[in-house]
């Protein structure tokens, strides 16, 4: 089964453009990041590795605490570790600025 997780965060920083990074390959993930109209960030995670909602929550909360960007983020995950997810998020943000 695929698990779909959604998260929302308050945001105040705009992003300049959309960004696409990563790949749906073993131990990796793909991220699509697009500017959002309102002052909120929304994240949808689709993952084939189930049961790690708490870990996703922690990784994403830390990222949006440091980068309160108004963006819609979609993550297609194929077993990326928390460190890989954090790096991909940073890469997406860098590409979008």
């Amino acid at each position, binding site marked *: *089964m*695929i698990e779909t997780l959604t998260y929302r965060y308050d945001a105040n920083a705009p992003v300049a453009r*959309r960004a*696409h990074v990563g*790949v*749906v*390959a073993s131990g*990796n993930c*793909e991220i*699509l990041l*697009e500017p959002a109209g309102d002052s909120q960030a929304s994240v949808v995670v*689709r*993952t*084939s590795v189930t049961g790690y909602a708490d870990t996703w929550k922690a990784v994403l909360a830390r990222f949006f605490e440091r980068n309160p960007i108004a963006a819609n983020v*979609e993550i*297609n*995950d*194929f077993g990326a570790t928390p460190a890989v997810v954090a790096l991909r998020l940073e890469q997406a943000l860098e590409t979008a600025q």
Partner: protein
Amino acid sequence: MNVLLADSFAERGARERAQGLLDPQTYRELLGPFERVSSPYLAAQSVVPQSDDGVVVARGTLGGVRACVIATDGRFLGGSIGEIGGAKIAGALELSRRDAERGAPTRTVLALDTGGIRLQEANLGILAVSEISDAIVALRELVPVVALIAGRVGVYGGLSLSTALCSQIIVSEGARIGLNGPDVVETESGIEELDSSDRPLIWRVMGGRRRYDQGFATDFVDDDVGAIREAVLHAFERPRELGPLVAPPFPNPRLERNEFLRAMGIEP
């Protein structure tokens, strides 16, 4: 070649490969990831889909001439071809054919890195390969179609047949060309015939150098983006003829390793 300084083509993703082939600043993607045209079948089978279905179709120029690069991503499900990715490839080839017919020839490159048809979309994948092959045959009547096999997977399965239909076939040493992959041969014929974990053996039998020597490819390149781009330009400007095919006919479906190698024309 200095491996530390080389700009490896094989280590790039499909999108970066297409960008490396087209003239700088001309890259424009059709049905890119944000169009979200991805496989509707994978999630039901517990597989996470990728937003571009593992196929990149890019338009731009190549040597100043209108061009289309079609690249499959071998990292996503082995670069396998499903309904959506297959339709993107066939559609891109169809666009190139229409361009050629209206007097605006398009340099079309198939940068394939694929294990073949996607098992999760079985019949739709088979249909896609037939549409792709049909489109290649129609297009090559008008303009050259260049296959570039220089990824980490190579080309296997249905698309190896489509590759053989192209007018020019460029291959790198690290890539492989075969109908059945090593795992399939081992499963079907036994480990006594082919041990799929024996990498040197696999490359001796179906590696890029071997396939070039056998006359299955028109050009052999180093794994370097600049060198590969040159070879692709060369393939359009001064097409080569395929050499005589030196692969002997295969006699028997079940052979012991050394017999198998001799049947392939290799001294064990």
